[in-house]
């Protein structure tokens, strides 16, 4: 067994996920037997959890992202002009569309949702809160977004095909929006949620189901479904091979829930 003197500096590595494999197992074994090291670990864990639980420590002000986006898009545009080539990256195209205000019939929200999904998928940013409990994630988001949000727990009771992973606060057009990450079959599904006061979906093909209108589109090889309901605008993004009502049935799979979406598939 490792001595306490060897264990102590490793506690932080363990908390910071810098210790893996056999070393991590050895440390865990030591902690189950050594009360002093366990106490030191608990103290460290408590401090780190308190600090990480306060994320984000500083709120990003409205307009900050738009300012930076303008700079980056301007740089991208000048670069393209200099080289006399059309920029090939989807991100450059997206920024040009957003900044030029091109009237494509899209709101831009779906593109942003897809771009954010891709970035998350590639590990470009961590979640602010990682939890499988909708209530915990809702409580974390509540004071940070300018709308009331309670993440549901569909379907209530019984096994779920998907699992909540957590959430991150994002900025879209100067507004705080909620990026909520789920996982199904080891693939990410994301839901971008904003207030519908200034953001409404409008891209792709629209389908009506009851009082709701769903907009289906493909962005960057991803399926995006956007809709507005009770003051909130949603964009669900995934690369799951499902269509129409099947997408909704992932979460709303219960019999009663499923009826809501049976009309889907009828194009407007």
């Amino acid at each position: 067994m490792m001595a306490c003197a060897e264990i102590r500096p490793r506690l932080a590595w363990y908390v910071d996920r810098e210790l893996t494999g056999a070393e991590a197992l050895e440390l865990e074994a030591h902690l189950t037997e050594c009360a002093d090291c366990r106490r030191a670990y608990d103290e460290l864990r408590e401090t780190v959890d308190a600090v990480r639980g306060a994320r984000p420590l500083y709120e990003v002000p409205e307009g900050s992202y738009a300012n930076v986006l303008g700079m980056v898009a301007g740089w991208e545009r000048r670069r393209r002009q200099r080289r006399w080539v059309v920029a090939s990256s989807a991100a450059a195209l997206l920024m040009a569309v957003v900044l030029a205000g091109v009237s494509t019939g899209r709101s831009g929200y779906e593109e942003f949702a897809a771009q954010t999904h891709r970035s998350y998928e590639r590990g470009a940013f961590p979640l602010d809160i990682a939890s499988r409990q909708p209530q915990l994630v809702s409580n974390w988001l509540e004071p940070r977004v300018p709308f009331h949000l309670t993440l549901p727990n569909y379907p209530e009771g019984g096994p779920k095909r998907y699992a909540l992973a957590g959430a991150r606060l994002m900025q879209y057009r100067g507004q705080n929006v909620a990026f909520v990450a789920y996982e199904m079959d080891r693939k990410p599904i994301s839901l971008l949620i904003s207030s519908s006061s200034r953001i409404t979906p409008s891209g792709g093909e629209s389908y009506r189901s009851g009082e709701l209108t769903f907009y289906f589109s493909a962005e960057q090889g991803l399926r995006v479904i956007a809709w507005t309901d009770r003051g909130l605008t949603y964009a669900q993004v995934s690369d799951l091979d499902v269509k129409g009502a099947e997408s909704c049935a992932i979460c709303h799979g219960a019999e009663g829930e499923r009826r809501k979406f049976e009309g889907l598939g009828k194009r407007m």
Partner: protein
Amino acid sequence: MRCSSVQGDFLPSFAECVLACHASLYRYARSLCGEPREAEELLQETYKRALEAKRKPAAADANEIRPWIFTIMRHVWQNERRRISRSQETLFDDGVGLIPSVNAELAMSRKLLVSEVRAAVDSLPLPWREIIVMRDMEDLSYAQIAAALDCPIGTVMSRLARAREALRQLLTPPVPGVRR
């Protein structure tokens, strides 16, 4: 995740990767500057320098770009501090001064408010504050922090340990009759 093109797969560009760093960078700027307006100015100057940089990271990976752009921000901030010569703080001295108590009523046994943790983090000396922000707020690895600060990983670990110990003291209420 590289900048090169692969048929049938969407890969992030340099522009997308630097944009993905925006929120992280802003928060780092706040930890350096303290004031929102100064943080925003620092953020914009950092992006300006990053976009104008002749040597950019080859890989378009936000995880690889983050230490690089954090380093730019740190240099911009240091240069500005030197220029206006108004620093009263020993910028990167690891020496521990007296850390003021944030609030004697704080208790770890209850949920700490964001404002309380922020007050504690803000009261740390800068070298500790920035390392807490990089590690515990922005999830940079030890290697990424070392790259951003241009120092050995051992320095990162020792500085982080001291910062956390200081935070633990700040966030733990004193036991009556016992001197810390």
